[in-house]
């Protein structure tokens, strides 16, 4: 884990050499979601969580990744999934951005120490000093079930996230009895993008 360069791209399924793969435990974190508020990942156990790392607030309007996810907040709710955006922007920057774009989900600040959580997920672009466009679907037990890093400059869309959420078992979705967290390295094979596509 010494080199976490952002050179790994999804042309090959193991592209994400540095990116935490399916089957890995999602590192816990507490990050500011507003100047006076924070979100702790482990407190969201019991339902799926979607982490969407992205380089920066204020990228161009219509093709913007967060704007797209904003349109899908209701779809994520239907799946009982919590959606969190993460970038190295400060909480004040997020506040202004969320207000200007009417963003309806939490944007977290991986601000101090800069990019520390992004690095733990293997989702930091060292050369540029920003998070990759990296997506993680974490199950109700805190295990990563799908991850993906988009090539530089490409908005990854939402189809991969929705497909990964649909593949979760009831237990992974947290539908079953509470207190039955999915096993960290369960029998679910790490899924590649190839699997993701083949199911559709």
């Amino acid at each position: 884990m010494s080199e976490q360069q952002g050179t790994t791209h999804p042309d090959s399924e193991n592209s994400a050499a540095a990116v935490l793969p399916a089957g890995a435990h999602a590192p816990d974190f507490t990050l500011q979601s507003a100047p006076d508020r924070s979100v702790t990942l482990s407190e969201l156990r019991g339902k799926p969580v979607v982490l969407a790392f992205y380089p920066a607030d204020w990228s161009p309007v219509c093709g913007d990744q967060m704007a797209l996810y904003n349109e899908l907040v209701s779809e994520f709710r239907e799946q009982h999934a919590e959606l969190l955006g993460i970038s190295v922007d400060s909480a004040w920057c997020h506040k202004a951005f969320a207000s200007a774009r009417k963003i309806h989900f939490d944007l977290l600040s991986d601000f101090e120490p800069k990019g520390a959580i992004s690095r733990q997920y293997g989702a930091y672009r060292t050369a540029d000093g920003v998070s990759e466009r990296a997506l993680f679907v974490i199950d109700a037990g805190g295990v990563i079930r799908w991850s993906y890093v988009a090539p530089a400059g490409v908005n990854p869309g939402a189809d991969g996230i929705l497909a990964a959420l649909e593949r979760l078992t009831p237990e992974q979705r947290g539908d079953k009895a509470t207190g039955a967290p999915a096993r960290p390295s369960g029998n679910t094979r790490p899924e590649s993008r190839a699997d993701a596509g083949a199911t559709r």
Partner: protein
Amino acid sequence: MTGASHYGQLVPPVSERDRVAGDPDAPVTLVEYGDYECPHCGLARPIVKSIQRRLGKKLRFVFRNFPLAEAHPHSRHAAEAVEAAADQGKFWEMHDALFENQDRLEDEDLVAIARSLRLDAERVATALADGRYTARVREDFRAGIRSGVNGTPTFFVNGERYDGPWADEDGFVRALERAARAGSPAKAHG
């Protein structure tokens, strides 16, 4: 990064449900997912029209709705108004008219534009009020998400997302000509 994955494959494929311009047997099908309030889509419209002229019978063009309604509050009703115009046989006339009037897309503007096209404007107004095309527009949007649409406009050439710069008309035409020669790249992926 082209063809990095099977993301970006058009689902569902073009069918009789779609709004289609051009020869149904054309070797190339260009699908656009767009939003009537998106300025980039407005810029893309004359480019698409020029491409349609240049490719002629080789091209079938399909438009599907992808209203980013959180960013563009008028986009859904605009899309519904065009669907209502389709019901009166004037989809493309209304489509063009809205892209030429992107700064006036309030409901009363939509109805006025319909009237200027000699549509039964009352029927358009009623359709907006009772939301009869809401589900259809939503279906387009959901299909777009499943196809890997990640903003507007997003284009698909013979079922595959075109990630090249659409504003480069000559480059776009070359890509379409290549697709015409190659047949369906979507099928090649199996």
